[in-house]
């Protein structure tokens, strides 16, 4: 590495000197190319800073005050140009880190969904449909980091079961409010994701003080018929990723809940919801 730094220092000194003698785009372009070279040679920003400092000390040695100012200004421009390449790399690292975090969150979500599928409460032998619905609502809140989640399902005889998780303004859980929101999910639509502003415009919440974003996905039988709705509410807008997760949860829990419904009369010894 010492050899690499020494070689870099030599080129740096000669290009900076040329730039200070004749400042302009040619010199700045030389700095940019030097930056590319430094990144390719794996030199750190600290290596570059040390080289710049050394070379600059030599440049200003013996200069008069006005010349020192000129040299410092020119050398500053030269260094900025070189460091712009490191800025590109830094932004790339930020992007990669964000992608890695999203990937980790995605893996975590998929693990949770797998666990949910294996949960006995969602199995065909479930004694309690309500328990299964509650579990789905809990998972929805956790997967999307929502403040509130509501899962509703219509059973035989038009009876509707509702599972609520989290702090919930009473107004959003009334049968009327639930029915009004269900109308916002048009037939055939997989999910609806409304920001704060959009939710406010749609009158999702009747409590004026409560401002929530709203994300909802229908629960559907295998034949496509809807039998319920999975909704989450949060102080911050939901992302596309949240939407994908809720949609996935709605799909797998729909199948599990449908299975539970089919077996229900046998296991509970009677028809209808309990």
């Amino acid at each position, binding site marked *: 590495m010492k050899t690499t730094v020494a070689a870099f220092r030599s080129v740096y000194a000669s290009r900076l000197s040329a730039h200070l003698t004749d400042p302009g785009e040619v010199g700045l372009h030389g700095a940019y190319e030097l930056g590319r070279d430094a*990144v390719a040679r794996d030199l750190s920003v600290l290596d570059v800073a040390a080289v710049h400092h050394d070379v600059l000390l030599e440049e200003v040695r013996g200069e008069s005050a006005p010349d020192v100012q000129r040299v410092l200004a020119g050398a500053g421009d030269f260094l900025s*140009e070189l460091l712009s390449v490191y800025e590109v790399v830094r*932004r790339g690292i930020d992007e990669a880190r964000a992608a890695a975090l999203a990937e980790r969150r995605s893996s975590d979500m998929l693990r949770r969904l797998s666990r949910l599928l294996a949960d006995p409460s969602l199995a065909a032998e479930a004694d309690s449909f309500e328990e299964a619905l509650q579990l789905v609502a809990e998972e929805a809140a956790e997967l999307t980091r929502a403040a509130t989640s509501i899962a509703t399902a219509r059973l035989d005889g038009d009876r509707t079961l509702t599972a609520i998780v989290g702090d919930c303004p009473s107004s959003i859980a009334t049968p009327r409010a639930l029915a009004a929101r269900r109308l916002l999910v048009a037939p055939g639509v997989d999910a609806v994701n409304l920001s704060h502003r959009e939710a406010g415009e749609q009158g999702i919440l009747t409590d004026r003080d409560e401002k929530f974003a709203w994300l909802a996905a229908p629960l559907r039988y295998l034949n496509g018929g809807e039998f319920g709705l999975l909704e989450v509410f949060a102080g911050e807008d939901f992302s596309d990723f949240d939407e994908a997760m809720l949609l996935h949860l709605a799909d797998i829990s729909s199948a599990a809940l449908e299975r539970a419904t089919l077996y229900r009369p046998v296991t509970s010894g009677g028809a209808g919801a309990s």
Partner: protein
Amino acid sequence: MAIESSGDLVPARAAARALALRLGFSRTDATLIATAVSEIVRNIVVHVGRGEIAMHAVDEDTRYGLVVVARDEGPGIRDLAAALEHGYAGRGGLGLGLPGARRLMDEFDVTTAVDEGTTVTMTKWRIRDELERLRERRHAGAQ
């Protein structure tokens, strides 16, 4: 501006920097714009050989924009998503080139067709503050 060799990098950078400073971008932003232009021109020279680059200003109510359009009639980019994420050098690259330019600008768009060429359009924005707009309105009123 025609791009035919690496010697065209300097005038392209100089034009981008001059326009950026004229539009009131900071020296740092002007440097980043010059670097983005360098990466795009370099791509044309290394991978296609020749092309052209043009720059213009956009004047909106609340912001100024510097738009750079680079075109070539080369073979096009077969895997655009990969080129935008990792560059032509693939996963082992330094993330310079196309992805590097994309990360330095606010908007970045690529249209490409195999055997027809590629057009890169990228924009950097600068917000006009209230005081600046007030001055401009006064200046316009005085004329």
